[in-house]
Structures are given as C-alpha cells and as structure tokens.
C-alpha cells in the first residue's frame, strides 16, 4: 500500500497554527500533523494522540539498572569471598553508591533509546523534506499537515475550513 499524501499548510505565527489546529480538531480530523520550530503547550493540548510512554521506559531502565548493580556487587563479593578490613561480605552500605549510579545510568540510556524508538528516529529522509518551504519548519514557520487518509478528509472541506486561517502556502506532498 502506498503511503497517503499530505496537504500541508504553512503559517507564519505560532497562534495562526494553533487557530488552524483548533478548527481541524473541531471538525474531527484525527490524522493531523504539526511541525514547529519549538514545542508549545497549546499545540500539544490540541494535538490528538496518546500520552507518551517514555516515562515508563525510563522507570523500567532504572529498575533494571538498580537491581542489576546491587546483584552484581553482591555476586562479586560472594563469588570470590575475602576479608577486606574485617567488613562482612555483604557490606550493603558500601554497595549503595554504585547501585544508585547505575540506576541513573540505565534509566538515562533507556530514555535516549526510548525517545529515538518512539520518534522512529533516526530518519534522515521524509516526504516533507521535499517541500521547499519545509526548510523553515525548524526555524520560524509553523506547518499543519492533514493526511489524505483521514476519514473526515475531503479536499474541498479542508480548503474551506482553513481558507481564512491565513496560511502562507498550501501544498500537497505525496510520498
């Protein structure tokens, strides 16, 4: 199946995009994408989609790291048991720092990998990059893209819906 194409509206201002986004959401569009130079709470509130699971991923990493670390220390101390300064084999107070550090480390690494995985990055190519204006998506332009496979999608309807939202441009990007 060939991926659907997108209708891309370019806006000059953050608030224009927010306005446009509100409209399409009001119309019940669900296959909506926005591309902005910076994150924005308002946009995030309007944007459909589930909350991010990245937090859970990082928690998992932390738990693995912590338990792994303490077990490693405990195992090492018992695998080759020796009397170090008269301390017991399982000197738990001394084992805490490494446990903590590895908790943080694993959690952070899971965070990075989780982020990349959830964003499906790295992805150097994207149909939108073929759009000349899109070069400013990272700089000072705000883009709204409606996927043509959206159940509510009709070219005219969309046209009418957003004509007075002052888009700088409107283009169709096929992939």
């Amino acid at each position: 199946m060939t991926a659907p194409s997108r209708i891309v509206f370019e806006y000059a201002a953050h608030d224009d995009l927010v306005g446009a986004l509100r409209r399409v959401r009001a119309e019940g569009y669900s296959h909506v994408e926005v591309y902005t130079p910076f994150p924005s709470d308002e946009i995030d509130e309007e944007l459909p989609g589930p909350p991010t699971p990245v937090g859970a991923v990082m928690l998992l990493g932390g738990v693995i790291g912590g338990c792994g670390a303490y077990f490693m220390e405990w195992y090492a101390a018992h695998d080759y048991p020796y009397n170090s300064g008269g301390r017991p084999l399982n000197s738990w107070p001394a084992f805490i720092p490494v446990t903590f550090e590895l908790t943080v480390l694993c959690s952070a690494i899971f965070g990075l990998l989780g982020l990349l995985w959830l964003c499906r990055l790295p992805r150097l190519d994207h149909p939108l990059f073929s759009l000349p204006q899109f070069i400013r998506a990272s700089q000072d332009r705000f883009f709204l893209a409606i996927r043509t496979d959206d159940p509510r999608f009709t070219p005219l309807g969309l046209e009418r819906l957003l004509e007075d939202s002052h888009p700088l441009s409107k283009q169709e990007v096929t992939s």
Partner: protein
Amino acid sequence: MPESRYNQPTVPPSAEPLVGPGETMERINATISRVPLTHPAPRFWWIGFGIAFVLVLVLLTAVSWLFLKGVGIWGINIPVAWGFAITNFVWWIGIGHAGTFISAFLLLLHQHWRTSINRMTEAMTLFAVACAGMFPLLHLGRPQYFYWLLPYPDTMGLWPQWRSPLVWDVFAVSTYFTVSLIFWYIGLIPDLAVMRDRAPTLLRRRIYGILSLGWRGDGRHWRHYEKAYLILAGLATPLVVSVHSVVGMDFAVAIVPGWHSTIFPPYFVAGAIFSGFAMVLTITIPLRAVYGLKHYITDRHLELMAKILMATGWIVAYGYFSEFFMAWISGDTFERYIPINRATGAYWPEYWTLVICNVLVPQALWWRRIRRTPALLFVISLLVNVGMWVERYVIVVTSLHRDFVPSSWGMFSGTRWDWATFIGSVGLFFALMYLFVRYIPSISITEMKRMVVTGEETE
C-alpha cells in the same frame, strides 16, 4: 505573552527581561547560528585556540614522560601519596557540576534565565568531566591496568573491591559523563536541525543533518521529547549531588584526620557548584562580548549567577567553619591538630589564600554595582577558581602531611611535571570549549525562540 505567567515565587518578578528588546525568531536564528556558521571574530578564536592547543601539547609531553618514568616524577611521597592529580580531579569534577546544575536543577525550578546559558554550561560540564576523568587514570602507579577497576570475568576470578570509594568514583564519573552527554545531545537535536537548514554548504548540511537524526519538529515527537528531557533533568539533579558526594567520600571514608568528616559530601557539592559557576562566568563574560550575545546573556544573567556564587560561597565558608568546630567538639587529639596545622602550619599561605579567595572575595557581591560590572565579576570568578583549586590542594596535602604518627610526618611540593599536567589539562579544557563554540550553537536556539514567542519554558 506576559512572562509573569510562568513566574514562580522562587525568583522575584522582575521588570527586566531575560532577552534583549526587539527579538524575533529569525533574529535569534541568525545571531546564534552566525557564530558556528560564519565564524566571526576569527582572530580571537585562533589566538585563544592556539594558546590552548600549545598547552595540550604540554599535557601530552607530561603524560608521555609520566608513562615513561612513573608517578615518581611528581612530588608525591609517603606520607603525602596523593598530590596534584587528585587535587585536579576534584577541582575539575567540581567545575563540571555547574552545567548539569543549571540545566537540570534550575529547569525543575522553572528558572527561565537558565535558557541562555544551559547549552554552554552543559558543554563545559562534559569537557570538565573529561579533564577530571583523565587524572584518576594518570595517577595510577600502573595505569596500564586501570581496567581492573571494572567488573569483568577475568581469568583470575577476581572482581573490583566494591567497598572502595575509588570504585564508586569510576561509576559515578562515568555515569555523570554519559548522562550529561545524553542530556546535552537531546537538547541539541532541534538546534542541529536548525543548523542543517541554515548551513551554507551541502556537506555541512549533510553533517548537521546526520547529527540531527532527521529531526523535523513533529508535534508528537515534541511530546516524547519534552517528557524525556524533563525526566532526564529529574535524574540529573540527584546525580549531580551524588557524584560530588562520592568524590567527597573518597576522603570522608578514610580515617585520615581532616578527611574523616561527615560534612564532606554536602560541603563538596556546594564547593563544586561554587567553582562551577565561577567557571561559567569566566567563560560567558568574554564570550558574550566577543560574539555579541549580550541580548541573550544579559547583565541580569550575570547578576543571578553572581548571587548563586555568593550563596554557595557561604555554604563553603560554613564547611570551613565546621571543620574547626567539629575538630574542637570531637576532643580528639589528631582531629584537633589538623585545622590548627592548616591555619598555622607549613601550609598557612595556601590556607589563607583559599579563605581570602573563597570567603572574603565573594562578599564583594553584596554590592549590586559589582554584580553588574562584568569586568569585576570576571576577576572575582578567576579568584574563586584559584581559591577552589587551592582548597582541594589544602584538603589533600595538609591532611596527609601530618597525620597520626609524628615520626612519619613529611612535606609535599609539586614538581614541574605536576604543574605541566595541571596547566595542560586547563589547555585541554579550553581547546575543547573553543571547538564547541566554533561548531555548535552555544545558546539553545529553540528554547530562545520559544521563550520569545510563547514565554514558555521547556518542561
């Protein structure tokens, strides 16, 4: 939008903006990306980098000689078996703390003003920690076996000795470096996308393009991104505290009078942030002047940093005081001897240098005028850097040179190789900083734009 919307009680509402007037998104893009893209003020850069690079060569020479002859080329001895290497290690780690503190801790406290300096300070953290991490390796009698400190299934059936703070160090420092790197890089991705889209040549577009992993500012990506960034900040904050606590425990765990003290971990952390902010000032003040970034790193930023400097300075001062108090209240002969020996013994000049630099000099910051005069701030920051190095020197050396048994008391003084290694590491640090400003936007473009447009803070 009114900035007050996000103001928290932690900072008093201030009429003074954190960004100069008349900033637009495009102007931010242009001004900040100009530095890496068009490389302005090349003379400043080349001279500075040149000097730093010469010092790096000095470092290489010193290290080569060290590997050839052994640590005996340094001034260390019995009883003072630790000298410059550990001093430098602690000093650099401390400097490394400002970065993560600013980016993570202030982020959690919604301190908007961090936005303009977090990128630079995070870079500073990375380079400082790199310099720091070098020394524990170099100071080994047999550096070729450093990997015995790592847990791996060797043919001897042996493992690291987990009760030793030095093993904690290995994990603390490497964790700190990795996490800081991840934090820094994640913050960098959108800016790398900006660079990709502004770079003049195809090659540089491609390079920045690869580095930015094809970031395209997708709204749903921003959703994951902000969450991850925030949690990382939440992790980095206790990490900062833990790392220098562990470093402090290198000393506190030992029974050496002058080391064996419960105040060390907090007192080291405070000292770390103290020296860290000093180094931030040392770097930002010239930088913003040369590259015309005063609109983003305003005098207000400097003032706020100065205030933190003074606050942490007081905590450090309290640490010094508590040394005397604890020694006195312990009633222990050896404990009581140490602070007196520090202040009046053979190392009194070092001790009073650190008191002047770390306690007296920062008091100047009570005056707003001084907080507002970059030149003076710059001088003060340098003095604090010196003071903090001397503090670590005093802690390491004076505690060891006269411990329990008077018959084995001795003295320490650094040799030329001690100095070469230290100066060289400073060179390495600045060389890396120069490369950083040369190729990477030293202020977060994305967050700047966001603050200008929405007044929001990344969360």
